């Protein structure tokens, strides 16, 4: 029972401790003085556009069976009279990343209301599920979804990391997953006909492929800012890693030099070590396409690290939101993201414009959408509803939905006019617009809207 006994024999121990502390202090002073002071799979693609041409919910066909898409190979979902068609929304809706995923989640509810009934049947989104912006979160939520065999499709996820785990589970259950927020090339393809590492048949997205975003940022840094050296930091998430890599590859292809490429942990707070690692190459620009809160700490601590005092900070759409832009340390930073100048684009199925959407959003939630992908989320939701409409028929008062038909519709989508622009789905599920813009943050609480519109560079392949 002599534990802590040495507390009583403190004289000698105290001596040892003082010696240790003195040694540490001496070491740090030594470090100060001896430094050299240099501060200095696609399924067969059916015939193009089965998309409805009208702006209202399409009228039922004359034949009760009609000519719905699909061969029944993935099974039929039966929705009895009085029941609702079940779809789900799986987005990052809590925590710091909530600012990123919540507008996409809400967009789904607005889209379902705008769309109305499908062949006389209501559509039920159920309660929003949370992808937690993580692999584990995506997996847990996907397991809840697939336990309900009535679910036809899922809108989500927000984060590519969550989709990596959720997409195989959801698509293996015969459902489709349509994301308005995922951008990692791993989930679709390298745009040269090779499937990504985490590609699943039955996965689609309206958000762009990050190979476009990486190229846009690289061209901006090399061509517009005139920098020849840059470094990139990611957090190990497929989105951040994919985008940082896309940027690095594109920057080198432009003729620049990547002086550093490293990773942090999502819950790191002290960024001095990683920033020092980057500072050894004295890059002119530092690209960190990550999320909050890690992005807060990098922007805050970078100017204090020797070698990064004048480095220009760049981030991407994961941080392009109403929580990040007002932070004092982010003033002057550049952000790449999807082109948000939607103008008078009209979603051909609901007839709604971006202005109609933001008005409805403000009425419902009392604020403007806090991040960039709400229009992508809206189009994703409408695409799912259109696909269900195209792959379903009513038999004895029961709505029959062909799961394979839903996929066939989506893989065959060409020239669809959405809120974000023209949508074409390729064999790997990339349906989105590839227009990317770079904006510069004006700074200040009241300038979020102005900063989002402060476009300094536009890119379209």
């Amino acid at each position, binding site marked *: 029972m002599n534990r802590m006994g040495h507390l009583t024999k403190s004289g000698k121990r105290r001596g040892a401790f003082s010696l240790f502390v003195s040694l540490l202090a001496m070491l740090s002073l030594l470090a100060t003085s001896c430094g050299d002071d240099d501060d200095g799979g696609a399924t067969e693609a059916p015939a193009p556009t089965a998309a409805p041409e009208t702006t209202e919910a399409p009228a039922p066909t004359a034949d009760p069976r009609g000519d719905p898409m699909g061969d029944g190979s993935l099974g039929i979902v039966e929705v009895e009279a009085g029941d609702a068609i079940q779809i789900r929304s799986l987005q990052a809706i809590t925590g710091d990343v909530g600012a990123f995923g919540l507008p996409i989640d809400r967009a789904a509810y607005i889209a379902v209301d705008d769309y109305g009934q499908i062949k006389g049947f209501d559509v039920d989104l159920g309660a929003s599920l949370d992808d937690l912006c993580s692999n584990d979160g995506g997996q847990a939520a996907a397991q809840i979804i697939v336990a309900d065999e009535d679910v036809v499709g899922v809108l989500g996820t927000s984060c590519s990391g969550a989709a990596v785990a959720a997409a195989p589970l959801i698509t293996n259950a015969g459902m489709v997953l349509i994301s308005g927020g995922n951008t990692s090339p791993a989930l679709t393809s390298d745009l040269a006909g090779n499937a990504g590492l985490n590609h699943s048949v039955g996965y689609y997205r309206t958000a762009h492929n990050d190979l476009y975003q990486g190229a846009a940022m690289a061209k901006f840094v090399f061509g517009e800012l005139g920098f020849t050296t840059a470094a990139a930091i990611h957090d190990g998430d497929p989105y951040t890693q994919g985008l940082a890599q896309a940027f690095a590859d594109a920057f080198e292809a432009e003729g620049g030099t990547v002086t550093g490429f490293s990773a942090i942990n999502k819950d790191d707070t002290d960024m*001095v070590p990683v920033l020092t690692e980057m500072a050894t190459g004295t890059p002119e620009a530092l690209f960190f396409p990550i999320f909050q809160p890690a992005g807060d700490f990098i922007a805050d601590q970078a100017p204090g690290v020797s070698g990064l005092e004048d480095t220009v900070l760049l981030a991407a759409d994961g941080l392009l939101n109403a929580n990040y832009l007002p932070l004092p340390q982010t003033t002057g930073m550049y952000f790449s993201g999807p082109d948000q100048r939607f103008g008078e684009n009209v979603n051909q199925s609901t007839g709604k414009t971006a202005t109609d959407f933001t008005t409805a959003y403000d009425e419902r939630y009392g604020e403007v959408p806090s991040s960039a992908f709400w229009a992508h989320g809206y189009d994703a939701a409408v695409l799912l509803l259109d696909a269900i409409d195209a792959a379903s028929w009513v038999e004895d008062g029961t709505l029959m939905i062909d799961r394979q038909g839903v996929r066939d519709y989506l893989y065959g989508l060409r020239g669809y006019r959405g809120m974000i622009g023209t949508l074409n789905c390729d064999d790997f599920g990339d349906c989105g617009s590839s227009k990317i813009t770079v904006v510069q943050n004006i700074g200040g609480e009241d300038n979020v809207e102005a900063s989002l519109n402060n476009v300094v560079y536009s890119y379209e392949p």
Partner: protein
Amino acid sequence: MSRRARSRKAPRTGVDWFLTFLRVAALTVVAVGLLAFIAQEISTDNPFARWANPDATGLTGAQFRGLIVSGIAQGAMYGLIALGYSMVYGVLGFINFAHGEVFMVGAMTGMITSNKLADAGYWESNFIGSLVLIVVVSVIVCSLTAVIMERVAYRPLRGSPRLIPLITSIGVSFFLQNASVVLLGPAAKAYPDVPDWLKSKHTFLGIEGARILVILVAAASMICLWYLVERTKSGRAMRAVAEDAEIAELMGIDVNRTIVKVFALGGAMAGMAGILWGILFRSVIHTTGFLPGIKAFSAAVVGGIGHLGGAMAGGLSIGVAESVGPLLILEPLGVSGVSQLRDAVAFAVLIGVLLLRPSGLFGERLPSEDRT
């Protein structure tokens, strides 16, 4: 008969050889990494500097200084939290895993108080006064949290096997985290902006003012705690209870009261660390206490659990090691993405110390009969 004397007589087993191999391998990796780093610092053209990492450039003096100071500041916070683990282990013999959450409560309290002060305009007009005020509030709230925790969760289990309060402490930890989510929401909360002299790095030897403040305040807290434990009557009572609670009671010491004081003191140190965290990183979330808590526990073990100076030394060792280790040892060895390995480095220090000196840096080698 001491363990050492016995082990000399016992034949070396395969496990002993394996452990020796591990010790030698760990020391070799550290030594080779360090030598390669030193070679880089002498000249990057040096063949040894580039044998594993052809892109190695080394660090400038200012960068090295920045890393060390950042490590000491981080380590000072780990040390302050570690004191609470160590003190409670000293008197009760169990690990209070909820202590990391007391630290989080301190950072949250500081966030709420500082934002109220900022709203009233006092934060900008009198920063030092505000800082003292948030420290006082946070220390009181954290001490109360720790004392209530002891009264409600641990005292009823005082006589039970040690595993039971340990599991209870994990439950308390979850309770505090979830209470924070319910009361304050799941998003990260920001501290108000600090004055420029804290952010500017040219204040003293090119070091950020905030980090100097953290180091100074941690040192002052440690001195106060040392004085309390070593020079006051209450401190003597704590040491007596740590030595042997039954005998201490027979000598007229109120054991319950002493234990409450230990929890209050540990809570106060965690509250102080919480404020320093807030000043340095200006952001707090309900999970803020988890990783620093685990690292502080490791620091307490590294220093020799039950030893107060050891807790602080362990904190500083882990803080500095995780800050400089990746760049000084791993990068010269050609490991990629080294900054992501900082947590691994921190826990490698724990494993390393346990391999080489199982009782910790300042821990005593206890006779086997006292180990039970």
